[in-house]
């Protein structure tokens, strides 16, 4: 490669809103139910049915818009996007084209070269489609309309990103905002967060953009990173060979790590957008915006500052803990109960993060309760269990959310504070290891460690190490 190229990326991100009911009817949005059980005449597009807007959707979209520094469109409208596909029961999608709910915002991301703003072009509300299930044995396709009408916000960025890392940082930022606001759980795997990548390359220093392609079907950060790298290479190769990049939509195949052309600009559909006549314009007053603003929960930067001040924990700890709202909530609830911020922080940044990594879990998958962690911290502090036992118990809390008190009781893990039992164990260890005893008495301090280790092992780790140390020293000095 003789020339230097720059990658230019813009994103269209769909976020599924965590409302209880659908955007235009009262059906449940619950994921994973039996097919077509959360449906009604409205979300199955029955003749004569009419949409009624769910107010919560507007409020969630406003919250997202405000958090991303957008201007809220105070008279906004829905439009129909017309296209035929069986997962789309009316053969039009109710979306927003002409007057989307929010416009002209930005989010700040951290890059290797410092902070950077990614501008948001617009956010609009729309309904999700159903799901097609293809039965290859029977040569038929079935439709499940449970997802039809689940509310989405589409966030369209400006082409401000230059690398896969920036794209991931941007997505993580959006996910964090959405999760902090409580408007979405943003799970890529379940499809509650989806991203389409618009990418072009140009010679470094060029002022104009190259021809872009749009990449679809990206359902993990890994797939997004790979797809970006693959598409960047593909486009550069074309240009190097003196060929042109064709404006088209491509589909990423994650198994084959390769993308395929879906449709070119020439066969791009004409969606015949027009204002949805079944819905009235949404008029958003200054008061309504103020209300949503006031209700806006504390976002990460403020939370980070507060943790440093209120809990006196280091910046590094505060950063790690506030990265996910779920983790921050867990931390704060634990501190609330046990009053020991530093210890709570250690448990979270230490064993919690380690176990999450081992098990490949996301913060959203955490299911242990702060009550149990707080209890564990209190028990350790009180000397009821030893540090070693505490770590074992925590694994049980982490996986099964056990009550540490009960678990310790049932498994006989309590610290042995019975002097007689300690004495008995130590006596036996000393009797069995005359050489070590002699070494110690001869001035070899190291021999003490061996005796200590064996004594603790004999006590199955349940004894307070301080008490054991004291006992060994007493007996050796006798």
């Amino acid at each position: 490669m003789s020339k230097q190229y720059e990658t230019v990326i813009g994103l269209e991100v769909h976020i599924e809103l965590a409302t209880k009911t659908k955007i235009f009817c009262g059906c449940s949005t619950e994921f994973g139910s039996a097919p077509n059980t959360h449906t009604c005449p409205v979300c199955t597009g029955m003749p004569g049915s009419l949409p009624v807007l769910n107010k919560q959707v507007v409020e969630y979209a406003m919250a997202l818009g405000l958090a991303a520094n957008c201007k809220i469109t105070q008279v906004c409208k829905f439009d129909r996007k017309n296209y035929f596909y069986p997962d789309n029961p009316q053969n039009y999608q109710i979306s927003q084209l002409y007057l989307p709910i929010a416009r002209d915002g930005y989010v700040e991301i951290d890059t290797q070269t410092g902070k950077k703003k990614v501008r948001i072009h617009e956010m609009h509300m729309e309904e999700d489609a159903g799901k097609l299930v293809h039965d290859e044995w029977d040569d038929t396709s079935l439709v499940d309309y449970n997802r039809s009408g689940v509310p989405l916000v589409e966030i369209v960025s400006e082409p401000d990103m230059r690398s896969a890392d920036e794209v991931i940082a941007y997505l993580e930022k959006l996910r964090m905002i959405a999760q902090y606001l409580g408007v979405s759980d943003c799970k890529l795997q379940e499809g509650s967060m989806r991203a389409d990548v618009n990418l072009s390359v140009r010679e470094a220093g060029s002022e104009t953009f190259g021809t872009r392609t749009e990449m679809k079907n990206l359902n993990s950060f890994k797939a997004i990173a790979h797809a970006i790298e693959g598409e960047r290479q593909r486009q550069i190769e074309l240009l190097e060979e003196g060929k042109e990049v064709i404006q088209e939509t491509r589909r990423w195949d994650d198994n084959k790590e390769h993308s395929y052309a879906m449709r070119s600009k020439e066969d791009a559909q004409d969606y015949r957008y027009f204002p949805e006549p079944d819905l009235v314009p949404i008029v958003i007053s200054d008061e309504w915006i103020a209300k949503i603003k006031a209700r806006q929960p504390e976002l990460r930067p403020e939370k980070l500052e507060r943790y440093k001040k209120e809990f006196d924990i280091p910046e590094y700890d505060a950063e790690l803990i506030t990265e996910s709202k779920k983790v921050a909530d867990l931390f704060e609830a634990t501190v609330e109960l046990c009053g020991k911020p530093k210890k709570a922080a250690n448990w979270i940044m230490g064993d919690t993060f380690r176990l999450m990594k081992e098990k490949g879990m996301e913060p959203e998958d955490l299911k242990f309760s702060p009550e149990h962690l707080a209890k564990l911290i209190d028990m350790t502090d009180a000397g009821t269990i030893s540090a070693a036992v505490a770590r074992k118990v925590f694994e049980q809390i982490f996986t099964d959310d056990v009550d540490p008190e009960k678990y310790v009781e049932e498994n006989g893990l309590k610290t042995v504070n019975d002097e007689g039992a300690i004495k008995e164990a130590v006596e036996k260890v000393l009797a069995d290891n005359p050489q070590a005893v002699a070494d110690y008495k001869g001035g070899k301090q190291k021999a003490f460690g061996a005796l200590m280790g064996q004594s603790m092992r004999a006590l199955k780790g349940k004894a307070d190490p301080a008490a054991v140390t004291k006992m060994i020293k007493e007996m050796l000095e006798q």
Partner: protein
Amino acid sequence: MEILELTALELGKKIKAGEITVKEAVQAAIDRAKEAEPVINSYVTLDEAGAFAQAEEIQKKIDAGELTGPLAGVPVAIKDNMCIKGQLTTCSSKILSNFKPAYTAEAVENLKKAGVVIIGKTNMDEFAMGSTTETSYYGPTRNPHNTAHVPGGSSGGSCAAVAAGECFGALGSDTGGSIRQPSSFCGVVGLKPTYGTVSRYGLVAYGSSLDQIGPITKDVSDCAAFLEAIASHDPKDSTSIDRDDYDFTSALENNVKGLKIGIPKDYMGDGLDPEVRKAVLRAAKVLEENGAVVETFNLGLVKYAIPAYYTIASAEASSNLERFDGVKYGYRTEEYEGLHNMYKKTRSEGFGPEVKRRIMLGSFVLSSGYYDAYYLKALRTKALIKKEFDKAFEYYDIILGPAAPTTAPELGKSLSDPLKMYLGDIYTISVNLAGLPGMTVPAGKDENGLPIGMQLIGNAFEEKTLIRAAYTYECATGKQYETMADISKAAEKEVR
């Protein structure tokens, strides 16, 4: 035959008094329908068994004092584009020829609460697209006054059923005149309410921003009673309006003193049949004699209403009718290869030519590159037309004119020249574009004995003013409605 001469309210009164049973009323209407249907073809579905079952239930409720409304026990018909749970709802189209909805339209639900007996679903132009009821998949409906002529459309089945005594009142829908024009042709009273007055939930949409359900009845009192029964604020319809004046029967007052009535000059000029003109002016004179002030004035923009209407209605229809694709319900083509072939064949076979024409027109005006030039311009025109009406209603209480340029044309004369047929909607269409209430009241007949209707147009939410003027006119001129006693006699007039 005696029962058939009664209006809905007169019948309701006699049922309440125990002089006539609900079963007798239903029997009379069914007998009449059976006699008339082979010629008139008002009904797509005549539900005899269901009607008698309802009659029994309603009679019990009336006897128990649970149903005391003025329409309790009255047999009615519903245009076949309103959903009734479990009952065939075809929109007179092949594509919905097997469709049974899972729910009932709000307006029908309201009417059922008033205790009526629904005896059937009436014929219409396919998906309400047409002005003659000739585009129906189930064959044309004929005008009971002269079976060589059309009943008008698209609510032709409902109007003919009322005119022929096959029911005591019916619901129609009106997107560009579909209640008022056939009411004029059939000599019955028809009212299109202010947009948002009657819920559209369960009305199979044609032009969503223009569609309204309304009553078709034998006289003005019935019209007020039916409107009172069906109008409601419905949270299931976002365009439904919460009004504070649902007591429409309180407007049945014989008094138009001081009422200012304007006749648009553009409504009385070229293209208007001289006999219709005469009848409308005669009706205006009657109102004047009763104390109204009648003047002529310039309404303006009248000629732009038709292109604006056909652009907007077709655009909305092209989208509304996309759901009929053979996937979920309705007709699906027998043989096909793959999804797109199934779509194409289903829709090619399932829709008639007029529907296809409007889908193509609507798709065209919405397509990229044409949207601004056609659709957006039509929306602007709509807004300007509304302004013209606003200006007129600053001064006038009612605008009076014809409902159609002619009386009912002969069967088979309209569809060959669709543009001419569209021009026939000139007096009714702008009322839908402006969202206003409009009402047709019988105002005599032409020399061939075909009915002529006058149209009263009111400002938004002024249905009561229309009802008052119509009622005063009716009191002054006597009973306009006549049951076509002998269908065979009407058929004799037919020149084949």
